[in-house]
């Protein structure tokens, strides 16, 4: 990895990591070379390992989720584990600092557990525990450093001999103060334990999988710290206290690994997330497909209905007339010699009937597809429509050149159907048709000044909407400001919608 390819944050994280490594080594050296025999090698080793684990895991989390507080809190825990361990030093100032900050790692840990995994406190209880942790672990537990003189502490025969921060020597005060703090903190820690257990249970199963290790390790650590405080409160029982302390610290040491495991599991569940996203997209696609299938079915159905209607119109109209005509002609033929006058009248009738038949056929043909639309394009065809409309129609068209044929046809039928609706239902005095190109789309608007109330679900408009949707366009029917209705179709003019788009 080239350094230049790193972000400033990553460079800072590497610096912190180096600092952590150095501090750990320094601490190990301090602890093992200390003249105070109360610092066995194993303890120093465990402590350094715990610190590094927190720092390493924290930096990893920090890098992956820079905006999430979790990583930073873990790094803090790691560094303060080192600082707290300075109590074993035989350097008076270092030992005093260790004493002052002895409880801070626990405070950071509590904060960490409460805001896991989002990095944010979620409730008032959360904020109370965090506040308590810093107040008790940082301030109240650190205060006695100014009154503690190791030289006068009978429990600390081998400790350092002086405390440079000492203001007033009062072992009684220190003991009372710390015991009171422990007595208050024990129920708080147990409450926190319950709080964390409840939270772990309320997580949904998907979340729980990645968070479970943290809840287990964190909850156990909090529980054991409470137990440690409890045993410290009781009479000095030597090994018993130490055993609890060791167990607590070993569990504490597992916390960063629990985080690591959680992170790995989160990684796994990020794959799950991708899968979930895919499922969502699939569902969307499916919905769109269903919609398309339905609209296609409606188009097919509409085509079927239209053909049925055409068939009926032809049979009941033109064909009926032609059959009647054939009969009339036959009858006229029979009478032509005996009764030429009647025959002539019948022939006149027949040709009148014939005119009606051809007229009907013409109208039918126009309904199927207006010739002027293919011959002269949308504007001319719409003008022709407007001319036939029984109310004044103002046309405002600005399209140069021809449009793709399917678009022209869809736009034409939108105008035709909308004008028919206006005449039939709107009670309007006038209508307007606007046709324009707009950013690669054709926008067709039909407005009227009538009473409104057009039903977009009506079969005519529904069919139009399907027709427009088949071209990836949209048809909307909405009231136009004040009164009347606007029918607006918006059809893309791209390649897919016919040549020359």
């Amino acid at each position, binding site marked *: 990895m080239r350094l230049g390819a790193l972000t400033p944050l990553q460079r800072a994280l590497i610096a912190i990591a180096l600092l952590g490594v150095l501090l750990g080594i320094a601490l190990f050296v301090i602890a093992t070379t200390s003249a105070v025999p109360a610092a066995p090698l194993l303890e120093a080793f465990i402590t350094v390992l715990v610190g590094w684990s927190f720092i390493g895991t924290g930096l990893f989390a920090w890098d992956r989720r820079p905006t999430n507080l979790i990583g930073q809190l873990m790094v803090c825990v790691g560094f303060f584990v080192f600082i707290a361990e300075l109590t074993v030093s035989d350097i008076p100032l270092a030992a005093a600092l260790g004493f002052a900050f002895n409880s801070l790692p626990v405070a950071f840990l509590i904060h960490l557990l409460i805001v896991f995994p989002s990095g944010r406190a979620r409730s008032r209880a959360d904020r109370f525990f965090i506040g308590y942790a810093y107040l008790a672990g940082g301030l109240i537990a650190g205060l006695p450093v100014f009154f503690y003189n190791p030289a006068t502490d009978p429990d600390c025969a081998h400790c350092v001999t002086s405390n440079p921060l000492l203001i007033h020597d009062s072992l009684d005060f220190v003991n009372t103060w710390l015991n009171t703090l422990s007595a208050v903190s024990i129920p708080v820690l147990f409450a926190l334990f319950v709080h964390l257990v409840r939270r772990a249970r309320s997580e949904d199963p998907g979340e729980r999988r990645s968070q479970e290790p943290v809840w287990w390790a964190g909850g156990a650590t909090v529980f054991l710290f409470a137990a440690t405080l409890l045993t410290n409160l009781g009479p000095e029982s030597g090994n018993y206290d130490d055993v609890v302390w060791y167990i607590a610290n070993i569990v504490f040491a597992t916390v960063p690994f629990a985080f690591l495991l959680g992170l790995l599991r989160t990684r796994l569940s990020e794959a799950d997330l991708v899968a979930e996203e895919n499922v969502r997209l699939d569902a969307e696609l499916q919905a769109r497909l269903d919609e398309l299938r339905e609209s296609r079915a409606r188009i097919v159905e509409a085509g079927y209905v239209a053909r049925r209607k055409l068939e009926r119109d032809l049979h009941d109209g033109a064909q009926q007339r032609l059959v009647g005509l054939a009969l009339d002609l036959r009858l006229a033929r029979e009478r032509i010699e005996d009764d030429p006058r009647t025959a002539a009248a019948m022939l006149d009738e027949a040709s009148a009937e014939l*005119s009606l038949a*051809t007229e009907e056929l*013409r109208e039918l*043909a*126009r309904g199927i597809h207006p010739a*002027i639309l293919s*011959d002269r394009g949308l504007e001319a065809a719409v003008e022709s429509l407007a*001319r036939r409309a029984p109310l004044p129609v103002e046309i405002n068209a600005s399209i140069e050149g021809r449009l793709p044929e399917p678009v022209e046809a869809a736009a034409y039928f939108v105008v035709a159907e909308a004008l028919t609706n206006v005449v039939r239902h709107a009670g309007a005095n*006038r209508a307007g048709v606007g046709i324009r190109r707009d950013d690669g789309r054709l926008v067709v608007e039909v407005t009227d000044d009538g009473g409104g109330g057009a039903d977009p679900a009506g079969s005519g408009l529904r069919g139009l909407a399907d027709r427009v949707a088949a071209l990836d366009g949209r048809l909307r029917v909405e009231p136009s400001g004040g009164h009347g209705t606007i029918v607006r179709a918006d059809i893309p003019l791209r390649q897919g919608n016919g040549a020359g788009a």
Partner: protein
Amino acid sequence: MRVIVAEDSVLLREGVARLLQEAGHEVVGQAGDPDDLMRKVRAHKPDLAVVDVRMPPTQTDEGLRAAKEIRSELPGVGVLVLSAYVEPAYAQELLAENAEGLGYLLKDRVSDVTAFADAVERVGAGGSALDPEVVSALMGRTREDDPLEELTPREREVLGLMAEGRSNAAIAEQLVVTDRAVEKHVTSIFSKLGLAASGEDHRRVLAVLRFLEA
């Protein structure tokens, strides 16, 4: 009268030709497509070309374009355009600057032999014949302030017949009134619509159509 018939349906072409012959005209040529039509028109210089709008190769408006070409190239040849459907817009295109020797009729009209023969005569002689459907579409157009509302029903009838290209005498005959009465109606119409009176029938057609289209 010497006539050329252009129509791609042989049945209809023969029918129209026979009709014309029976009416005493000479069919000097028959064409099935626009190129054939143009060739024969140029060769024969007939009095009239009867042209179907839809012809090969695209079956859209070849006939219309051929008709316009004839009118600009050979103004002496009357053109009677037949179509399965009529559009005022096409009438407009055909008329362009003048209505002289121009007809635009629905194909169905051939079944009314007398009316068709009359139209053929008129157009061949330099007059006009516009389909009643075109005229009624123009007159029936709804306007905000319809100047036609000032006309009496009889005057409207007369206006429509004028727009179709009929002469006063023909209008009188159709409405069963005297020529004098028709003249009075025409004068009244022109003054109500604010149009300048015009002598020749085809000029009158143009004036009326311009007015109706405006």
